[in-house]
């Protein structure tokens, strides 16, 4: 009798986050996610190329509304994500601790930083145009402005697990891309996808329109090449594409992206040494912007 609990925990079926909904993978398959000691944590959906393409469709459909909303509104939506995360801080601390094999205190600190990162980028939505735009003093009677605009759909290979990358790293790559009005399809860290899938639940309750963020779990080597070669993905963030070779390797993905002349953000020289706890700066924010220059004559 002693090993029969009086009350069973209710396990969560982890699902993908696509178009604001939580579909199971079309593969009908899952893969085992374990903690750092190899203990089973949950089954994650084994996302496929088809799931990825569906997510791109959802992301494309969301571009017009999200890019078209006011920067003020986008800022509030991002701040709302921080609010929702704050309320689920303990859950995420536990998931990050399990995913990364970290102590509770360290994991909680990483979650706090992730919350603060949403707040930091929330504040950027209505300021980035003022640091990236320009009024150009051309030599002629013209009114001439350069304004930054979102690139469109950004495919993101999220940082792989290790030292909190599965959550703080994930937030650090999603938030800047959507702060500037892009929509994203994210291939979550393959070995530690649970914090990412749970983030979907937070985003769904944070006024983030469906399709703005889409999160797929699965093998990076299955998901990333689809993002890299997809005709309707405009930019590619290869932060988590670290394998030395194989279909998920950064160089292979960058070459695939060349066919559609996607904007590519390359991974760090040593991605495992990337310090996500340091101040992010504006690099990622500016990476997924285009500059549009508009000319108009001045006269009477």
């Amino acid at each position, binding site marked *: 009798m002693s090993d029969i609990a009086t009350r069973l925990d209710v396990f969560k079926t982890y699902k993908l986050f696509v178009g604001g909904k939580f579909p199971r993978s079309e593969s009908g398959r899952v893969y085992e996610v374990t903690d750092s000691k190899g203990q089973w944590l949950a089954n994650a959906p084994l996302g496929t190329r088809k799931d990825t393409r569906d997510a791109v469709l959802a992301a494309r459909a969301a571009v017009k509304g999200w890019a078209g909303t006011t920067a003020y509104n986008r800022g509030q939506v991002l701040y709302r994500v921080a609010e929702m995360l704050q309320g689920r801080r303990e859950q995420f601390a536990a998931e990050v601790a399990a995913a990364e094999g970290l102590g509770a205190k360290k994991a909680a600190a990483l979650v706090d930083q992730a919350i603060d990162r949403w707040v930091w980028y929330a504040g950027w939505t209505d300021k980035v145009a003022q640091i990236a735009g320009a009024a*150009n003093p051309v030599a002629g009677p013209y009114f001439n402005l350069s304004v930054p605009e979102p690139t469109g759909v950004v495919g993101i290979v999220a940082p792989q697990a290790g030292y909190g990358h599965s959550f703080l790293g994930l937030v650090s790559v999603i938030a800047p891309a959507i702060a500037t009005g892009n929509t994203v399809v994210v291939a979550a860290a393959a070995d530690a996808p649970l914090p990412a899938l749970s983030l979907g639940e937070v985003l769904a309750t944070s006024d983030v329109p469906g399709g703005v963020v889409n999160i797929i779990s699965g093998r990076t080597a299955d998901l990333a090449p689809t993002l890299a070669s997809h005709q309707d993905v405009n930019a590619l963030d290869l932060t988590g594409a670290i394998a030395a070779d194989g279909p998920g*390797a950064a160089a292979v993905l*960058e*070459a695939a*992206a060349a066919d559609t002349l996607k904007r590519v953000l390359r991974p760090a020289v040593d991605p495992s040494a990337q310090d996500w706890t340091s101040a992010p700066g504006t690099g990622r924010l500016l990476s997924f912007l285009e500059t549009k220059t508009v000319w108009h004559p001045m006269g009477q």
Partner: protein
Amino acid sequence: MAKNKKTQEPVAATVAATPKGGLFDYAPAPESPAAAGDIATSYGHFIGGDFVDSSGSEALKTVNPATEQVLAEFAQGTEEDVDRAVKAARKAFGGWSELPGSERAKYLYRIARIVQERSRELAVLESIDNGKPIKETRDFDLPMVAAWFFYYAGWADKLDCAGFGPNPRPVGVAAQVIPWNFPLMMLAWKIAPALATGNTVVLKPAETTPLTALRFAEICRQAGLPKGVVNIVTGDGRTGAALTAHPDVNKVAFTGSTNVGRSIARQLAGSRKKLSLELGGKAANIVFDDAPIDQAVEGIVNGIFFNQGHVCCAGSRLLVQESIQDELLEALKRRMATLRVGDPLDKNTDIGAINSAAQLARITELTAAGEAEGAERWSPACELPSAGYWFRPTIFTGVTQAHRIAQEEIFGPVLSVLSFRTPDEAVAKANNTPFGLSAGIWTEKGSRILWMADRLKAGVVWANTFNKFDPTSPFGGYKESGYGREGGRHGLEAYLDV
């Protein structure tokens, strides 16, 4: 000039007199080809501050496209030549990048001034080598070249204030490959920001237009530019490929066709070399029913017939609101009948020669496809000179979005006309290509201009004007028109380690 062999006689202007436009007669107003200065019979590369012979024996010829006369021979750069040039640039990099910005600035100001001083010579030489009208080289290309150096000279000592951090560093050795449509202007767009930010460069001009780049090398010497800071290697695509693939270049800047850009992007994948691409376009020039018709017609003509249409941001798709289509086309045809096609060195010439036989063949092929697919072709009656490469200004009406002439870049004086009814339809049609370089809007309604500009997927939007450029103003494309911007503060980023 030591290595450049004996000079030849100035090339005579043998192009037939410009045909009459029907409205006015003009007496010929020829510019003197002698103003181009001495053109050597054969040129080597400019490496490490000297003109040097190629390691290979292959030579290419550059011809005057208006006469088909050979102007000079020049070297087909080998891998060894490219390597030598990159080594020279690498050697010069340390000193150049450590030079105080204020001193680098002075070199750039010197270059700007010498370009202004030698402007007529360069304009005539450009016109002879490229085939573009002298009034464009004189009034557009050369002033723009000087302005570009002047503008970036001023950035050289202010880089810490440019918004790229307190101590932005140059990337290193920049490999630059440029096209033939604006040979000297493209050189200036590439070299000025690279030098201002402390990089050294190896530039490859196009194989049909190397002469002004080689003349620019002389200007670098007159300016006292340290040896190896600017290196020029001539040749065709093979030389370009050797340059962009060279393991010791840190940055590649390319302007040219989308296909070549794509292959460079593929070639550089995984290399960590920085890359900026300015590629093709298929700009929509959108005219609403409330637009001032005469101004719009001027804008359409400038948009597509400027530089024989050899312009990546040319307004090659006219989208006209259905209610004014007939009126606009009539006015456009009337205006086109006054365009003067012929001798590029005649100051009255509006449309010069097509740059090369190959380019003429490409334009001919695509326009044939337009007719075959059912679009209606129209050109004003005009005589063309018997020698040289020429193409009449041409418009196609009844074009649908599926036609090749509505989707593919023609890069010649060929306009495809489509119509629309609502602003939404105009936006949808304008954005319906893989390109996204430029667009034009013609309407008197300010709110509609801003609404349209917001929705057009294009890096440059000209409202009630077209084909305007300025060094202070970022230029570059969305989508498959490439990435990165040239011009303005944004143009510095391509050459900084950020």
